[in-house]
Every structure is written in structure tokens, then in C-alpha cells.
């Protein structure tokens, strides 16, 4: 029973971690709190849903949804946030602008798609399971953990193992100095928007697969959890997002299994509040130190 819960928790946790990574990348490199991030998750889920309803395999629908969400994120960032960045506006400005945009986008999505919960075609959800040391793991769960793991590994390599990632870290730390070295900030900003929007879209597909329930506001629920993950991990820290995502996913699943599923959503927020009380900079955070 415990082992089974741990596996289920790992599945959810890997999605949370992936989601928080994309947001962390956006915040860390672009220096903005972009609340539209959660919306890309909803859109990603719907795009994959529509694609699979038209007979496209989930293996193609996932990258398609991710790329499309990345492209949307690039456009939104270019329209809303690039002007603010150019004016060196404070973080609160990006928060307010994207809050407004988020409300607008969700109400448009709500009008266009309705809030009915939709499900993937039966062929997509592979209920067949493999037996792993007495634990039942469905093939869909394997797909989720496999995709999330591969994306996390790719992102970690990009940031810490590649020349491009070095440029992104330089841009995050000192945008002006990076530009003096010849870094084309505009191009890298679009790249980061593309990647994080893509990650959110991919998360939407994976969350949709895990619960097999898709509706326009799923991104908003996830955004709130994402905040809990990001605060627990330490704002702007990639390792923190990864570890905190897994922790919250595991704790939620264990709470649902051993306490009551009705309180599972409280776990993340309880941790959020605890973190802000005890260790505001989060597990790995440096932000509080920087601000001191």
C-alpha cells in the first residue's frame, strides 16, 4: 500500500516539479512574475485533447501541444512584458499586467470551451499495468514520469552543461553586462519564453493524462500549487523547484491515501505558509539574502 502511494506520489510530484521548473526559469532569467504561465497548461491540455480526438497519437500530441504553448508564451511575453522590461519596471508591474491578462484569457477560454470536464479518448489512456516489485504502475504513469524526467534532465543539461545555458545564467544575473559581452537579450528572452511556455503546455498534457480530466481552469489550480512549490523550493532556484515539486506531490498523495482526499490540496498551502514562517528563502533560496 505504501509503495503504491509512493509511486502515485512520484507521478504527481514529477509533474509539479516540471511545472515549477518552467516558472522558475521564467522568473530567474526574465525577472518577471508571469501569471499567464498557468494558462499555457490549460491550453496544452486542450490542444493535446483535440489532437488525440482527431486520431493523433499522444506521442505526437505532447510535443505539438508543448511547441504551440511555447509560441503563445513568446507572443504574450513580447506584447505584455518586453515593454515593461525595457522600461525597467518593478516586479509588481509584471504581476499586475499578467494578472489582468490571465483573467481575460481564462474568461475567453471559458466562453469558448465551457467548464465541462472532458476526457481523453479511451485509446489514449493506457490502463494496462506492469508489476514492479508488487506495485502496479500503469503505462500512462510510465509515460508521465518518463516524459517529465526527460524534460527535467534536458533542462538541467541546458542550464548547467551547455554554452547557451551559461549565457542564460549570465543574462539572469547581470542583463546589462551580458549585453556588453554580445549576448542578444531579446533572442534569449524569446527562447526562455518558448521553453517555459512549452514546459507548462507539456505539464497540462501530463496532468490531463494523470487525472484524465481537462477543463479550462486546470491551469489556475496548478498555478496556486506551483507557487507553493516555488516558495518551498526557493524562488528562482532550479534544484529547489525540483525537490519541492517531488515533496509536495508525494505528501499530497500520502495525505489523500492515509488521511482524506478532501484535505490533500491543503498540504501544499500548509507547506507554503510554514515555509514563509520558518524559512522565507525556501529550501535553496537566495532571494531573501539578496534583498536584505
Amino acid at each position, binding site marked *: 500500500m505504501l509503495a503504491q502511494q509512493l509511486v502515485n506520489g512520484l507521478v504527481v510530484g514529477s509533474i509539479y516539479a516540471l511545472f515549477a521548473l518552467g516558472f522558475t526559469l521564467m522568473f530567474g532569467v526574465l525577472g518577471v512574475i508571469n501569471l499567464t504561465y498557468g494558462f499555457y497548461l490549460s491550453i496544452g491540455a486542450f490542444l493535446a485533447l483535440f489532437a488525440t480526438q482527431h486520431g493523433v497519437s499522444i506521442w505526437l500530441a505532447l510535443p505539438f501541444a508543448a511547441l504551440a504553448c511555447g509560441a503563445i508564451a513568446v507572443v504574450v511575453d513580447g506584447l505584455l512584458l518586453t515593454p515593461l522590461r525595457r522600461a525597467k519596471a518593478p516586479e509588481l508591474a509584471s504581476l499586475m499586467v499578467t494578472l489582468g491578462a490571465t483573467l481575460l484569457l481564462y474568461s475567453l477560454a471559458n466562453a469558448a470551451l465551457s467548464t465541462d470536464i472532458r476526457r481523453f479518448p479511451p485509446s489514449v489512456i493506457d490502463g494496462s499495468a506492469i508489476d514492479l516489485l508488487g506495485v502496479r504502475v500503469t503505462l500512462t504513469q510510465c509515460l508521465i514520469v518518463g516524459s517529465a524526467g526527460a524534460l527535467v534532465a534536458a533542462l538541467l543539461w541546458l542550464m548547467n552543461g551547455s*554554452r547557451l545555458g*551559461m*549565457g542564460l*545564467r*549570465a543574462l539572469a*544575473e*547581470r542583463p*546589462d*553586462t*551580458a*549585453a*556588453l*559581452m*554580445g*549576448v*542578444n*537579450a*531579446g533572442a534569449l528572452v524569446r527562447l526562455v519564453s518558448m521553453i517555459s511556455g512549452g514546459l507548462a503546455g507539456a505539464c497540462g498534457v501530463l496532468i490531463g493524462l494523470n487525472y484524465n480530466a481537462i477543463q479550462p481552469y486546470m491551469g489556475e489550480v496548478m498555478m496556486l500549487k506551483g507557487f507553493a512549490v516555488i516558495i518551498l523550493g526557493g524562488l528562482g532556484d532550479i534544484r529547489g523547484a525540483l525537490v519541492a515539486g517531488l515533496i509536495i506531490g508525494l505528501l499530497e498523495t500520502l495525505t489523500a491515501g492515509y488521511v482524506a482526499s478532501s484535505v490533500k490540496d491543503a498540504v501544499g498551502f500548509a507547506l507554503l505558509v510554514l515555509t514563509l514562517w520558518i524559512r522565507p528563502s525556501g529550501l535553496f533560496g537566495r532571494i531573501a539574502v539578496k534583498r536584505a
Partner: protein
Amino acid sequence: MSEALLSVNGLTLGYDHATEAVKGVSLEVREGSVVSLIGANGAGKTTILRGLSGLIRPRAGSVWFRGQDITGLPAHRIAALGVVQVPEGRQVFANMTIAENLRMGAWLLNDAAEEARRREAVLARFPRLAERLGQQAGLLSGGEQQMLAMGRAMMADPRMLLLDEPSMGLAPLFVEEIFRIIEDLKKEGRTILLVEQNAQAALDIADHAYVLQSGRIELSGPAAEIARNEKVVAAYLGG
């Protein structure tokens, strides 16, 4: 009149709508020369360098580099032309290693062999950096960070170096070393525009000098002449 490598005409710069930090400044830097820009705190020296590097857009005036109009180009394009700045306060990437900081200097270079060659030259010039390539740059002392910032700029093999207050806040021993390095760069034929509060050292090393006051050029001429000017002696050389 021989062509200047960099020529600035009537450059006006400011940070907000109301005030102009730099008002109609004109100056010239010839290939292979060292030009010093001296002036009190807040005279607009750093603003001029930020304008030349494309970090702020000129309100008026023009900047020409190698006969090409570069007015208003974004910073990364100006860097690509070979105008490389060592900014005020070193601005090393503190969370990155020394090796990574140097690699960032060669960001626009897509040639691993050439990058390795330049790195060797930089490490020969700054042996202190060679000993701690894997260390976080934020852990270095101010003087070492200045060397890293200069080494990082040299990784770009600049056609023109803009040095903003390289000696600021450094211990006297490091100040001497920094000026010795600038002297070496001059001997190698590098073109340098030097902004300094240490007017004496800046005038000693320069061929030509400009004195900036409240955003305007007050005086210009051969550095040796400027160093003898009574007003300059009284205001900047503690005479």
C-alpha cells in the same frame, strides 16, 4: 586629419525625461591611442560609456566607429563590432566560475581553438586567475574581480576597450597593477578610452584627455598639456 577609430559628435544622453546627464559631448579616439576622460563624480563619465556601448540610447548626436554610424545600435551589436566595455564596479558574474566568466567574454566567438588561445593569453597576463578557474567569481577580492573583468573583456579581442573606473575602490597595490596592465595594453597597440577618478594616473598614461564637467567637455588636448593646466591641477590633481 586622419580618421578617428571612434568619433562622437554632440552626444546627448539622459536617464529620464527631465534631466540630461550628458549634453552635446564630442570626442575622438584614434586607433592605437589611449584617451582619458576625467571629471568629478556625477560629471557624466559613466553615462558616456553606457551610451557608447549602447546600454542607453542617445537623445541627440551621433557615434561613429570605423567610419560606420553606430548611433542607437543595441549593446550586443556594438560588442560584435569590437567595442568592449569593462563596466564600473567590475560586474563579474558572481554566481559563475572564473572559467565561465572568461568564456562569457568570448560569447560571440565560435572557434574553440581561438578561444583556448585567447584564454591562455589572458591567464598569462593574469596568473592569479589561472590558479582558481573553478572558483565562484563572487569569492574574489575587488582587485581580483577587476582583473577578471579585464580578462573577460580581453577574451573578446577588442578593437577598442572602454574602461570605466578600473581602479575604483582598490587597494593601492592593485591600483598600481591595474595601471601597469593598461600600460602593457597600450604598448601592444590597443585602443583604449579610459574613464577615471584617479586623474593623475589617467593623465600619465593617456595620449589625449578630455575633462568633463556637469555633462559637458570643459577642456581637451594632449594629456601632458591637460596635466599642466592650472584649473585641472587645482580641481583634480590636488595642486
